[in-house]
């Protein structure tokens, strides 16, 4: 559903080519994804999908897979 939108948002936030991101993308394999960029990504996701994440969720949303999971929880 939203996976393309999320990947595009991630590419924009990380300032990288969309093509290098995929469903296995996580903080471990994207060097630009540091703690500050993480904050920007959360802000971008919250604004795009009109949701609000809890600190505990934000802490674990460090991979594409978890992001999709948390998004589907708040946007059933």
């Amino acid at each position, binding site marked *: 559903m939203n996976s393309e939108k999320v990947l595009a948002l991630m590419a924009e936030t990380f300032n990288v080519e969309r093509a290098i991101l995929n469903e296995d993308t996580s903080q471990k394999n994207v060097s630009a994804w540091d*703690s*500050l960029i993480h*904050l*920007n990504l*959360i*802000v971008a996701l*919250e*604004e795009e999908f009109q949701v*609000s*994440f*809890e*600190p505990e969720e*934000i*802490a674990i949303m460090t991979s594409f897979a978890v992001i999709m999971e948390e998004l589907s929880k708040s946007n059933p």
Partner: protein
Amino acid sequence: MNFYIYRNFTVENLFSRYDATFSGYSDITQVPEDAINYVWFYLPSINLNSLELANEVFDFKSRLDFLLTRIPTHKRFLLFSLDCLFEFKGESSSTIVDTSIQAYNAHLYDLTTKHLNVKVVDFKSFVFSAGQGVFDWRFYYISQSLINPKLNITFASWFQKQLDAIDGNRKKCLVLDLDNTLWGGILGEDGLEGIQLGNTYPGKAYYDFQTGLIQAKDSGVILTLCSKNNESDVLEYWEKHPAQVLKQNHVAAFRINWQDKATNIRELAEELNIGLDSMVFIDDNPAERERVKQELPMVSVPDFPRQPYLLPQFLKEVYQEYFQIYQLTAEDREKTHQYIANSERKVFSQTFKNVDDYLSSLSMELKVFCGDEYSIPRIAQMTQKTNQFNLTTPRLTEQDVWNCVRSGAMVNCLGVKDRFGDNGITVASIISIREKVASIDAFLLSCRILGRDVEKAYLFYLMNELLARGIKMVKASYIPTAKNKQTEKFYESCGFSCIQDENGIKGYQIDLKLKIEIKPYYKFEI
């Protein structure tokens, strides 16, 4: 590195647009030499113990005072004022935190009077405009952000406005409509008695709007009028309406006629000798605004509020958007007066036989200043604002100009007085000298002084000075911009030879032999 930022919390996101480097949290040990600007951005921590919070603020002050002794005095040091984002009071009468913050902020402004390179950035104005959402507990706990990261973009554009205000980057002129803009109603239809202006709403809103416009004028904004009306009706109204606070002498020029507004605005720009891109047009009529937008895209045209009660807020926003200034120079304060005197000069000049005749009748007094604490703020400001008569258009800060002085350059400017008034400092120049060769790195003139060949006389004066110092070779250049075409032939007209022309960038030189004779009506003094 443009900015080196001293901070005690996470600010990286806020400055992502800038070439900035950050100190460690609360670290004041580093003063990197390659920074162009230093920024002090501390905010009180989130601390639910008021006493500790107040002590922290006192501690900020000692740190800052220590750091200030180590920041190079020729580099700009921007200090953010403090605002408390969260306070938990045991007793509601307790003022300990407020008092410490007020004392701290007063101390910052006090520092600006003692250190020319120090400027205060009013952080409260950001908190105020950002409103409730400025602090967010979630983001605070996950990242030590005291400012909601959702406001990153808002912050960056606010910060840019503060920098513009400090640099004196602002528009120059407000063009105001009359009916339903300065007052409620239509003069031609409702008559003097029918106009809404005075003590009761909606007249009070227009009254307040006018009061604010006078303050804008006193802060150096040129006010002009552009209205479709009979000029004689308006002038009569002006004499008679008791609540009309904005007087005719607040206004530098007007076009009250039935001509289309784009043409009128063009004429106003010409009369005042300012660029169309330095004008802001205020009109309640969307059709008029649209037409001006179409025909004069360089003029700024903000939307006008539908309800009169929104006028004060509207004026504040327009002012912050286009005219905010950190601090006025004496020249700014006098500006409207000078523009009005200039219009008189124009009329006066028509009664003479020739230009010499006119120029000598002006009784000009030209005072040459060397770059010093008095003149450098104005020189820097002129380099920021002068577009038309500017040969190389360098944009310099006060610190840049100080650096020129330190490197041995001849930094000068010229105050121009005549029988109509004091125009203040209106010409500036920077000439570097290396091994007996002088190069004119900057040469610029405020347009309100154009048309009297003062620039030529001043250049000749400087060339004579150089010759007296034994310097014979003078180099100069012209760098074209969108606006300085009128200076394209300036050096040719002063006897320089063009030795280079690459894509319109021209290099000149002149070999000085004899002292140049300057017309006696240019009376120079030092």
